């Protein structure tokens, strides 16, 4: 997928957001090897130091670990991955509900609308 960046938000934060999402969604599955910094920097068209900074943050959060000779890997810690998914989904819910409330919807209306969406769009078993 092509990399695009928004104005006014530090590039490393935008990279971080995207990599977190890719780890949470399993695009980079647990234990998968991440591409080298320079390769990913080239693909994204960003400065390698900026990419390095995003990787360092991922490492600090325990989402990625470094094996000295062979590179960087996604954590296999299911607890960490579960928490990541929770954090990311909470952000989405927060943003969506904020927008719906600004549109004038009540909490009850939002709840029914989400339920209506879920039943109109298949069941858990489809996933």
């Amino acid at each position, binding site marked *: 997928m092509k990399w695009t960046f928004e104005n*006014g*938000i*530090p590039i*490393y934060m935008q990279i971080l957001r995207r990599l977190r999402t890719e780890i949470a969604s399993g695009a980079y599955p647990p234990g998968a090897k991440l591409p080298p910094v320079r390769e990913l920097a*080239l693909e994204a*068209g*960003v400065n*390698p*130091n900026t990419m390095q900074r995003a990787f360092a943050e991922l490492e600090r959060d325990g989402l990625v670990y470094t094996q000295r000779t062979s590179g960087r890997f996604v954590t296999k810690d299911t607890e960490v991955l579960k928490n990541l998914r929770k954090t990311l989904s909470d952000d989405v819910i927060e943003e969506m509900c904020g927008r719906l409330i600004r549109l004038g919807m009540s909490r009850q209306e939002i709840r029914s609308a989400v339920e209506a969406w879920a039943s109109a769009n298949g069941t858990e078993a489809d996933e």
Partner: protein
Amino acid sequence: MAVLECIHLTKKYGSLTALDSIDLSLEPGRIVGLVGPNGSGKTTLIKLAQHLLTPTEGEILIEGQEPGARTKSIVSYLPDREFLPAWMNVESLLYFYEDFYEDFDIARAEQMLESLNIDPHMTFRKLSKGTREKVQLVMTMSRNAGIYLLDEPIAGVDPAARDYILRTIIGNYSENALVLISTHLIADVETVLDEVVFLKQGHIELHENTDALRERTGMSVDNYFREVYRC
């Protein structure tokens, strides 16, 4: 330690002051954008670093030395105009550079020319303007230099080639090198920059990390530039 340092650097052309006592210190391992409107002193600064001009007052130091023959062996310079002998073909330019610069990596240059589909048997003069600029950049980036001074490297080429050129810059500078890119096309380069230096009428208006600038102002470097230099 700084690899390029300006101390009270001043350059006057007669009664015109192009650079007015600037202090600047640039570290290795960074890609730095030198931006500012026309006539703000960008090219003057780069020419001083390359000993094509001499300071009126103050000094400029490359790895602690005054610019001269010795510093040119560690600085790879791309002028803002055509500088290669027009009668040579691309292949003989490669050999010319290999003879001239100890740090020239001919295999890297050949590989880049091939990926840009540039025929090495073409005479430089017969290439299109954009292709000539690409050849010049290939030559400049194929040196394993400590400092790259790129004066308007993307101004004359199409957007697709711009992308390729920026990737060439990210992909080829060594991790301990300084890359200084002068440009007024900020939107095209801002994602590759570590730091940006804003010049305004011979003064340094701002020298900041680009992500810190985005965070502080809530704007892209390009938008912030338009704000600072609004006419």
